[in-house]
């Protein structure tokens, strides 16, 4: 019985580490039918607000307002989401993207959360297996002798204990 679940759990954790970031990151920027909201969510506003073009709340923002209009026009001309994103990346560089790319150092961004999760999971499996293999506390041993009433357990201490019980409850 012992440990018979740890191998499948370890396999699942390995799959999570390897497969999840790939599946998830592969979807970045891929939209089946581009929408203004979808595409503009993939771009970061350059006005300094730190939000995406979709979310920038400055009514007369010099970046998000014209870019949103441009995106609408590009969608109207039949361009795909990744094409529009690539156009802005070419113009402004990587900083305009609202998610890390899946190239080079940026892969770490996608990999680390799942690697940490898998490591944590592996640690739990390792620790719980150790707990399971540890000898159970010996319940056959006689109970320790009861303590004798302490001579110091006088009325004053009793009063203090009563106070504490009243407070705690």
């Amino acid at each position, binding site marked *: 019985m012992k440990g018979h*679940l740890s191998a499948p*759990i370890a396999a699942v954790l390995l799959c999570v580490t390897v497969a*999840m970031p790939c599946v*998830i990151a592969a*979807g*970045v*920027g891929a939209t089946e039918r581009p929408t*203004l*909201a979808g595409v503009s*969510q993939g771009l970061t506003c350059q006005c*300094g*607000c*730190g*939000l*995406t073009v979709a*979310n*920038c*709340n400055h*009514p007369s923002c010099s970046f998000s307002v014209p870019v949103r209009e441009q995106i*609408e026009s590009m969608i109207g001309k039949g361009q795909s989401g990744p094409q529009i994103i690539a156009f802005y990346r070419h113009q402004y560089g*990587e*900083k*305009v*993207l*609202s*998610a*890390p790319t899946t190239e*080079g*150092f940026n892969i*770490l*961004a*996608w990999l*680390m*959360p799942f690697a*940490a*999760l898998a490591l*944590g*999971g592996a640690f*739990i499996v390792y620790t*719980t297996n150790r*707990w*399971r293999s*540890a000898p*159970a506390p010996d319940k056959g041993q006689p*109970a*320790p002798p*009861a*303590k*004798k*009433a302490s001579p110091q*357990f006088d009325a004053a201490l*009793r009063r*203090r*204990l009563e106070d*504490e*019980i*009243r*407070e*705690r*409850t």
Partner: protein
Amino acid sequence: MPELGRLALLVALVLALYSIGANLFGATRNRPEFLTSARHALWAMCAMVTIAIIVLWNGLLNSDFSLEYVAAYSSTTLPTAYKITALWGGQQGSLLFWTWLLSIFTSIACFQNRRRNPEIAPYAMVVLAVVAIFFLGMLNFVTRPFDLLAVAPVEGTDLNPLLQNYWMAIHPPSLYTGYVSSTVPFAFGAAALISGRLDDSWIRSTRRWAIFSWFFLTLGNMFGARWAYEVLGWGGYWAWDPVENAAFMPWLVMTAYLHSVMIQERKDMLKVWNLSLIGLAFGLTIFGTFITRSGVISSVHSFTQSGLGPYFLSFLIFVVVSYTGLLIFRSGELRSPAEFESYLSREAAFLFNNLVLVGIAFAVFWGTIFPVLSEAVRGVKITVGPPFFNRVNGPLALGLVFLMGVGPLIAWRRTTPRNLIRSFAAPVSSGVAAGLIAFAYGIRVWYVLAALSLAAFVMGTILVEFRRGVSARRHMVGEAPAVALVNLVAKNNRRYGGYIIHVGVIVAFVGIVGSSFFRTEVKQTVRQGQSFAVGPYQLRYLGLSPLDTPHLEMATADIEVLRDGREVTEMAPAKVFYKRQQQPATKVAIRSTPFADLYVVLAGLDDNGKQATFEVFLTPLVFWLWAGGLLMVMGTVVVMWPNVRERAAIAATLRGAVDREMAGEPVPGGD
């Protein structure tokens, strides 16, 4: 008056310093009179900070522009309510407000522990005083709220228009309360490590504080989301902004902590883990403050950027290093005989629930700091925004929801496959049915199908739990179903309050899924009297109503909303111009129903208002996000409600144990 404020802060700092010395001396030399004196010093510190708060509020309410802070964050035309909230609208005021809350919570913790926990309470007060000294030091020497201007201006600069909203009146205090109250369980955890009293007494002493902190973190996050929804004008409520993330991370870790302490209380396991979690939760609150105030990472919520980053970073490093050092120092004593029988047990469900919660917190942390890392390593500062967080956290959220369903129905120690099937047959059936119904309604997005199925599964497990409890009471006590339900919750408030919170989380989860995947967006320019369609609604632009006050100018578009040819409501989105700050802003109009929210933004005006451009969002189920939040709040109130019967039972047990001890009889469970 400003001199009084300055003096009060200085005296508060001295008192905090004195309390540390008195507490340490009293605890190590067994001199109770010094412990009493330290307690009085901390209460006096609270009184001093309260005086400072009153002085600053007085300055704000009386528009005393000789005070630099008042001149920077208020004006004579600012409505009185916002003069009060301007206290936390700027750097110094918000730090003072933080310190005030800390001093109040320290005083309450002092009072609660004046006769109990004598071995750890003095050290906990030392930790609380150390945190207070950091903030008081900042207020006295680095960022002073009572600095005076050489020449007082006639008029103030005014409060940032984005903060002139009622949600902003309650969002920061709620969040700060959540942040600051987490200091108390952290201080007791640290005190347990310092004193070597490593049983679960520190957890029992601070359980309500931890729930209180979680409660206000929940409220703070919800209010912040609502503020973003109503004020930022993009139709959403969560943008994975660094400051939002900073508020979300402690909530996640505190949620993990509240679950894992149940294992320690029940089985005396996970001591190191629980101490680590509470340390992490507190560290993340300081990290959040560091992000908000340092300007290291740009954020739409950073209204108080300054050069305080290095101070907060230093304090954060001090907290992390000293707390980790204590954990390592006590690691040998923290080992406990752990009993773990099966992965099909509640312990296992809680362990994996903790893994996913902390995993999500790590993903959020990683995404938040990755731009800084990228800049340091590659010299390129990239942005990590919603696409990253949604894609990474989406699957993890599904896992978490699944575990929420598994945990309550699975037994402690081990569950047999037969029991598993019996317990989960109905919830699994409800989950499958929900998925099939959604599929039949044309939903083809796998995430939504999975999310709805899991939500139905969890609701099924909670209903099974309630049904079992009610049924047991009906058979044992013979109560009517409604009475049995009320008594079930009243007599087991901690457990069933927790389930109510779970219902709230699921309801909010469904709201988030619905509003994220099925939003309709329309942008339309119309002339006065013209209509346009958004989903089942027709919106007709009736005209513009101007408003001019000394504080602002506002142009409100009057819109008639029709459905099937009949008027259902009128809406009034507006453009606002704040005169003092010379800053434009939008005021959105929202019509909320359980099915969908109609959200209208006045995006532009032409031809003297005869032509207007509107951005309209039709967002399904967003109503349920707020309803879920309300349920979470109600559930937490149930959990925290004093259980008189339980307390009486504990008191009787304690008294019985004392009587047996005095009579020299063996005490059950005694050593």
